């Protein structure tokens, strides 16, 4: 734990960069299970259709509305219409706090410099509008040796390292 504070966490830790099979941007998926292939529907539609399993969360949607139906969710796509719109960070972390362990995919304007923080909020796959450079992603994910606070990953915060 102490040696690699980023190990573990839902769907593997942010440091896990092993590619997984299926899809063209596999290396941006940090999970071992097969990728769900059902198309996503909006939150309102999802709540209406009792057989849907993939849901799109748009900026401004309140993910807490998924609480009663969480057991049928396999994929949550959280959209970033602009990289400056940070609501999706809270959405992902709230989902993990609710106990959701399925895939959370970031779509839209996902910039390489955001990925590390997205991983910490519980995102475990990425489908950005503009393709990312793999070497840059790896560099960014491995830049910070520690974290100062809890998030949705299993990273041990510095205060905890200090006090054993």
């Amino acid at each position, binding site marked *: 734990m102490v040696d690699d504070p980023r190990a573990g966490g839902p769907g593997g830790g942010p440091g896990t960069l092993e590619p997984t099979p299926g899809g063209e941007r596999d290396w941006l998926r940090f999970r071992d299970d097969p990728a769900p292939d059902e198309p996503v529907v909006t939150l309102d539609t999802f709540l209406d259709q009792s057989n849907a399993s993939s849901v799109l969360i748009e900026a401004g949607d309140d993910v807490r509305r998924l609480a009663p139906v969480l057991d049928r969710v396999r994929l949550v796509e959280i959209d970033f219409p602009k990289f*400056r719109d*940070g609501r999706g960070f809270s959405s992902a972390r709230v989902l993990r706090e609710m106990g959701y362990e399925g895939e959370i995919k970031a779509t839209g304007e996902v910039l390489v410099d955001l990925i590390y923080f997205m991983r910490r909020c519980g995102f475990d796959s990425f489908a950005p509008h503009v393709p990312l450079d793999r070497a840059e992603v790896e560099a960014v994910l491995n830049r*910070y040796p*520690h*974290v100062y606070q809890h*998030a949705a990953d299993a990273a041990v915060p510095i*205060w905890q390292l*200090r006090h054993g």
Partner: protein
Amino acid sequence: MYKYDQYDQAMVDARVEDFRDQTRRRLEGKMTDDQFKPLRLKNGLYLQLHAYMLRVAIPYGTLNSRQMRKLAHIARTYDRGYGHFTTRQNIQYNWIKLEDAPDILAELATVEMHAIQTSGESIRNISADQYAGAAADEIIDPRPWAEMIRQMTTFMPEFSYLPRKFKIAVIAAEADRAALRWHDCALRIVQNEAGEIGFEVFAGGGMGRTPFIAYRIREFLPTDQILSYLQAILRVWNRNARRDNIHKQRMKILVHELGEDEFRRQVEEEFQHFLALGEDFPQAEYDRIAAYFAPPPFETDLSEEIDRSDPDFALWADHQVAAHKAPGYAIVNISLKPIGQIPGDISAEQMELVADLAERYSFDELRATHAQNLVLPHVRKQDLHAIWTALHEAGLGEANLDLVTDIIACPGLDYCSLANARSIPVAQKIAERFADAERQKDLGELKIKISGCINACGHHHAGHIGILGVDRKGTENYQLLLGGSGDEETSQAKITGPGFDEAGIVDAVERAVERYREIREPGERFLDTYRRVGMDGFKEAIYG
């Protein structure tokens, strides 16, 4: 003073490499300027009119001599030999080259400093009472909590892209020296009837184009729950704030639109949730941090006497020295407002002198203040004369704390690309007009604050006399405001009427000040008189 351990150091070092890499990618054209902008802003790098400006964080306004010397070195090596202390206890350099910025950050990291989250849509440097740990009137030193908040809010994943900036201030005294309620979130340490200490919490303050004074949303919060409570506030804001209009995204707008009660309800609900997650640092971590802020080894049996036989020194001591909690000690305010100079500016040589004084006379500690001055927090009264002599020789001996020439001014049109008007020359002209020491003393406490546009960096909303630069058909014009305050009786200044040109605004200020002299009652400050008679008592004198 807080000292980094290997973890803090590793984080700051990593940030330097992070930014070096981002700068390289920008310079190689792998990122657009639009994409780079928020990244550089999170490292305190603004683009101004003529060059980049770098804002360096001074956490809760506390620094030591080694850090001050490094700031001097940076001023000399990478800038034009000076720096500028800001209204949030930070320092800015005005003439920075983008390609130098990573090296400057690397230099700062060697003295436990950084520019992390000093601008952009982020949780900014925490500000605090500049007298923390020294003030005679404080309950306890608030800085250990400020440091905990600094750590928790550094690279906080969920709040990577907040709707706007978020400013926090912390104090622990009845007297407010930090413009508390002008912050997005303000914390005041209080003691309840059981003798326990906790935070009184205010939220939703801010200046800019839509000023709001923060509402009190919690009377008493146990100190060991502050990190949960702050996260709750941030999440409620991040989730609900508008994203369609940059001018409506500060938390103050949300608090206003939801209403104080609904905002509080949502925060309390989210707070219970965070408490259950165990987000607060444990007592052991508080103890570890607080140990760094233990009082320095004050001497006992010191003399309380100050030899006032030198009249120039006596005048300075009357204005610049504040009460210290330890017998025989005093707090020294160093004015960065010499008459006719740029408010808050200081040369590399002056920085080094101040560093020497701190090392020799003040247990190696210095403070920056939101009024753009400096403080030697722990000085023996018997050393005051020697300190004054050294300051005086270096051009830092001005005796004008909180007087009419102790003006706050933003960079304005001399530097800033958003400005409508210049602020610095107006500050200089007003200071020259009122330079006479007797006149200043007679006028007493009078806080003038000048902004070059409605963004209000110069705190004009909080000025006893505020000045706001506007653009009137392509020429610089200045509005006059009266009655603002950033102290424990916070108030928002009101516009007097039509604006003035540059010469006219100086005359208008003088007319307002003379009117005060005419109608004041014994013991009344300018602000007290204004509050008693209102705008009507001044209007005619100003406009005739």
